[in-house]
């Protein structure tokens, strides 16, 4: 049985439109779940991440260097990197390598970012962390599916590539 996602816009700013996805028609998108979970337990770190997302949206745009790629070199069990697929990236807040709150995302271009879910990283490496790894794997799958949808023009760009266009009831299998 295939799973499917629907795309939902969660915020729009001058420089960036932010989206998330809902899985199998759940009421809450991955990003909203991320917020809900972490408002209760990691509020400070969540605040930093959301603040950063907003400042990027208002002032700077989603420049490449602002997003960190998941390092495949350290994550031997992950999907092999291919030239044409873009791996998911993440946004993170925290002082040390372990105990950071990590949010996975998919940066389409400087103006469009899809936000997924994430968790507290409790190990030095993502693949060693039971909290974070499932979110990373899910992010990977959905990103791949979204990429295909763009290739197949099920998701389109607007005229100046500052936003995406898609049917409101579009369902994408992953």
């Amino acid at each position, binding site marked *: 049985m295939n799973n499917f996602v629907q795309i939902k*816009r*969660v*915020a*729009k700013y001058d420089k960036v439109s*932010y989206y998330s996805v809902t899985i199998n028609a759940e009421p809450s998108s991955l*990003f*909203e779940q991320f*917020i809900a979970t972490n*408002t209760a337990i990691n*509020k400070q770190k969540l*605040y*930093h991440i*959301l*603040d*950063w*997302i*907003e*400042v*990027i*949206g208002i*002032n*700077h745009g989603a*420049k490449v*260097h*602002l*997003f*960190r790629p998941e*390092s495949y070199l350290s994550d031997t069990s992950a999907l092999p990197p291919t030239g044409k697929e873009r791996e998911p990236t993440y*946004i*993170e*807040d925290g002082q040390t390598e372990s105990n950071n709150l990590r949010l996975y995302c998919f940066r389409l271009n400087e103006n469009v970012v899809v936000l997924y879910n994430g968790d507290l990283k409790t190990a030095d490496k993502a693949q060693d962390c039971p909290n974070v790894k499932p979110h990373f794997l899910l992010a990977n799958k959905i990103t791949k599916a979204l990429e295909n949808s763009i290739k197949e023009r099920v998701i389109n760009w607007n005229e100046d590539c500052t936003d995406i266009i898609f049917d409101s009831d579009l369902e994408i299998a992953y």
Partner: protein
Amino acid sequence: MENNIISNWLKEHEVDPSIRKTTELNLEIAIRINSILESKGLKPVDLAKKLNKNQSEISKWLTGTHTFTTKTIAKISLALEQDVIYTEPKTNNVYFTVYRNENTNYEGTEYETSEIFAPSIDLERNIS
């Protein structure tokens, strides 16, 4: 801003306005460092080598999620041979008096003919 989950949450949970200010500064600095690297044709790994650090640390700096110390900024500035943050440039004000061509400046003054001591050699300054 309807349907803006992020802004709404931030408004609802704001406690300390300095967090926003810090985020803005961190991002400005990150973008500035990246811009300097690009203008010099350098990559993050080059900066890492100069500072004897892991590339992943430099990558983290460039995300704007890192709060810099002034000491780190100083070291980065030296390594890149360019100021990351400009401190106030020194200005030196010079004041001039401008005169209008009015008679009162010179009327009523008596003048005597001058004699000039001018050895025919050694007057190197040519002012024309």
